[in-house]
């Protein structure tokens, strides 16, 4: 994942940085270009206004009616008052004002009836910015007027007249801004650009400015500020970031999906195989490795299944071998035991034969003396025969109520001793087995447990039943005999199920080995958990009867 994300992140950062740099430079170029255009336009308009004003002045100088009116001819006074308006319209100007030396307005084109008003400072202030356009704020009767203005003069009828004329500025300020991303703002003296959180590229053109509506009128400086918002760049950067995060999210999602797929296709099956394999032991070889996969997992599963089958076969052989070994051992033991039983009898017979030969009259007396020996041996052999009979019971497989068997065995044991209890799983399905065999198993295990707790005041034996869900969906019945007795050491545990191994004086050592064999014959399993000084748990699992329901 990191191998993909790191390069992706580097790419996104690189793209953003490069975009930023290039676009910012482009915007700066754009703004600078607009400023150049504006400066060029202003220079051109300066010339145009100057030419028009000069032409008006020239025409004025030639006008006799104006001259007569200036000299006081009342008949031409209306002509004088209307002159500036006509001249302004003919020359294409937006503002024209003719003043005398004292600043009195003789004729006004943009405000005809402003005649005789006095603006003495205007020519002086404009003269300070000769040869350039001055941005002037004046007014018409209807509204304020913003105009680019120049000044000229004409000498007429012995008087110096000042012509102040210009073109309307508002429309021209934005005429050049064909690029809608550029914003052109006129800032008057004292104004500042509205603060904005957006980044901007800003350039300005400075203009002489005169506000005739303010008091006092002074020549100041206005600024035409060209602004290029970097909103689009910011938007682009955000878009790149957004796409980067989208790519990141998609990569993560793809990774998760791939991981889930790999998990589903490989990891989980391997884990399942590992779990099944871990559960395998000689007493639990019922794990199923069946699969329909054709990949490596399937091959491994089939390998494990084959191995398990061989293991089952080997376990059977082992049991068989054990059984034969046990039988061999048993045969040797039987031979030994029989010999032990027969030897006293043979000795008595030999003595009696000798007495018969040597002193037949004492034979009854000798027989009487030696009869106990013979009876003891016969009793010994009889007992031996009963014990050996228990080693190979006949199994009858049918549905058994395990809870009932446990109850009965526990009840019988409880009559002889306290410290035993039963915890039964409700509605336990029937087990497949032999009731007698199961009883023998429980009797043996409970007997051992009670022996373990004997002498302990708080010793307790607990026999419990349970239903255990299997890995393949099937379940097994479980009966546990737990005691709080002395427990077993590891070495004792390892030999506990060996034939003829016993820690009890007078014990045959066959009990647990018989139990183990009986359980295996029932297709069950046995395991022991013990801790010295703490106690022992013997857990027996048995298969359920066919058709048994699964508890809720």
């Amino acid at each position, binding site marked *: 994942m990191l191998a993909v994300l790191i390069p992706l992140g580097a790419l996104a950062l690189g793209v953003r940085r490069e975009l930023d740099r290039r676009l910012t430079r482009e915007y700066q170029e754009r703004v600078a270009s607009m400023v150049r255009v504006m400066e060029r336009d202003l220079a051109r308009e300066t010339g145009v206004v100057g030419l028009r004003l000069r032409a008006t002045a020239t025409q004025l100088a030639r006008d006799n009616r104006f001259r007569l009116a200036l000299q006081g001819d009342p008949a031409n006074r209306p002509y004088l008052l209307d002159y500036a308006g006509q001249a302004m319209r003919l020359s294409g100007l937006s503002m024209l004002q003719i003043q005398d030396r004292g600043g009195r307005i003789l004729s006004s084109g943009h405000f005809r*009836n402003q005649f005789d*008003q006095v603006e003495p400072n205007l020519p002086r202030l404009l003269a300070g910015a000769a040869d350039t356009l001055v941005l002037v704020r004046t007014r018409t*009767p*209807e*509204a304020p007027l913003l105009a680019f203005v120049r000044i000229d003069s004409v000498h007429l009828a012995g008087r110096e007249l000042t012509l102040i004329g210009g073109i309307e500025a508002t429309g021209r300020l934005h005429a050049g801004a064909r690029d809608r991303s550029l914003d052109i703002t006129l800032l008057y003296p004292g104004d500042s650009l509205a603060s904005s959180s957006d980044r901007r590229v800003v350039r300005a053109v400075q203009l002489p400015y005169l506000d005739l509506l303010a*008091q006092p009128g002074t020549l100041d400086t206005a600024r035409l500020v060209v602004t290029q918002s970097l909103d689009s760049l910011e938007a682009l950067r955000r878009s790149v970031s957004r796409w980067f995060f989208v790519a990141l999210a998609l990569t993560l999602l793809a990774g998760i999906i791939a991981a889930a797929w790999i998990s589903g296709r490989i990891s989980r099956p391997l884990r399942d195989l590992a779990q099944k394999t871990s559960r395998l032991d000689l007493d639990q070889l019922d794990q199923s490795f069946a699969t329909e996969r054709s990949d490596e997992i399937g091959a491994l599963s089939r390998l494990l299944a084959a191995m398990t089958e061989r293991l089952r076969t080997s376990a059977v052989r082992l049991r068989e071998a054990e059984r034969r070994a046990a039988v061999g051992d048993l045969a040797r033991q039987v031979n030994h035991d029989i010999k032990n039983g027969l030897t006293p009898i043979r000795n008595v017979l030999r003595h009696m034969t000798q007495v018969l030969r040597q002193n037949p009259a004492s034979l009854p007396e000798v027989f009487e003396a030696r009869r106990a020996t013979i009876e003891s041996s016969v009793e010994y052999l009889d007992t031996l025969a009963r014990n050996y009979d228990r080693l190979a019971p006949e199994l009858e497989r049918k549905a058994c109520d395990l809870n009932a068997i446990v109850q009965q065995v526990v009840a019988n044991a409880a009559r002889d001793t306290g410290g035993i209890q039963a915890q039964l799983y409700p509605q336990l399905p029937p087990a497949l087995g032999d009731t007698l065999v199961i009883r023998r198993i429980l009797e043996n295990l409970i007997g051992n447990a009670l022996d373990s707790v004997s002498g302990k005041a708080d010793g307790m034996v607990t026999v419990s039943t349970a239903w255990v869900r299997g890995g393949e969906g099937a379940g097994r019945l479980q009966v546990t005999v737990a005691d709080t007795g002395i427990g077993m050491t590891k070495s004792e545990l390892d030999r506990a199920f060996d034939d003829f191994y016993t820690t009890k004086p007078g014990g045959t050592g066959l009990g647990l080995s018989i139990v183990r064999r009986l359980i295996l014959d029932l297709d069950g399993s046995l395991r022991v958990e013990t801790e010295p000084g703490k106690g022992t748990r013997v857990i027996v699992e048995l298969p359920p009867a066919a058709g048994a329901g699964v508890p809720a």
Partner: protein
Amino acid sequence: MADSAQRLDTITLAVPEPVDLARAPIPASADQRLVFRQLFENLVRIDCQGQLQPALASSWRADSTGRSWTFALRDGVRVPYGSSLTAQMVESAWHSRQAALQSAGLESVSALDDTTLLVRMSDVRDSLPQLFADLLWSVGSVNLPGAPSGFRMNIPIGATGPVLQILAAPTGDLRDALDAGADLVISGDPQVIDYAARHPEFQTFPLPWDRTYALLRHWGSALRVAGSLDSAARLSLARDAVQTEARPAQSQAWWNNGPCALSVSMKAAVPTATRVVYQTTDPVARQLAERIVALAGDRPPLSVMGLDPVRFADALERGNDAGYIVALPFRSVAPCRESAEWTRRGYPEPLIDTRSRAIVRRGSPALTVDYDGTLRIVPPGNTMETQTH
């Protein structure tokens, strides 16, 4: 005004724009007044020297109380193009303006017979009140034959007289109308007058001073005119500010005198707008407004605003502007009715008087002029004194 070489059975009177007949008989402009005077007639008329002259009524007399006046209608008098006029027709026409009857001080009007009308006043008058010459008490109709409209109408003059054809100049320029053959034009435009003066086929006569332009300000208006509007200032207004024939307003402001002098009430709120408002249909008003704004200076800077007649009336009613240029009749025969329009609005300060000139094609029938500048064509056979002003 008469020319010995009388001619024409049709006299064309050119007006600069179509005349709105909906307001008849009360005119809102000089052209409407001119046209309505041709369509409506009063019992009496006032000549250019302010004297009452017979019109629909041939004679009148008061009773001993001085409150009742009996009018005898002229024999054979007819409403324009229509039927013979009866006293009942006059009574009916006046009763349709019931509210105006009371405000004019007319208690009752009744027709004694077909040719005799009795009018009872609410107060005693030594002489016949001039209000009977007010167009409000005229009789007539705009329903001329031939589908008249504001653009063209034909009005027969008298029983056998010529037809007065009133045409709206297609281009709005009366010089074009003169070139197209108009016989009569009323104008104050110096360009039109100058143009006619350059054509020998036209004569030009000054008409009576008929308009007084005033600056109406509410109390508390921010409008302060530099210097006072003294006679010199008014002279400048008349001579320089407007492009029409004008003179400084005479002092006889009828709205200040008489029983119906304007009573100006205090407005509840001080006007806040910095506008001087005029009607867009009146170029003289615009020029005066501009001059007033120029004289007021730049602190605070005022501006002019032109409004159409409806919006102008609304603005007057609201009274929120610095000032209004209003055109009042120079002389009113019904000062109470006229001044009623101005009460509650402010005080009108007279600025200039204006008048128009009549441009008449030589050979046109004789004309006479009323006190308010209304031209009348003298029907053939009707001897009226030619009077000068």
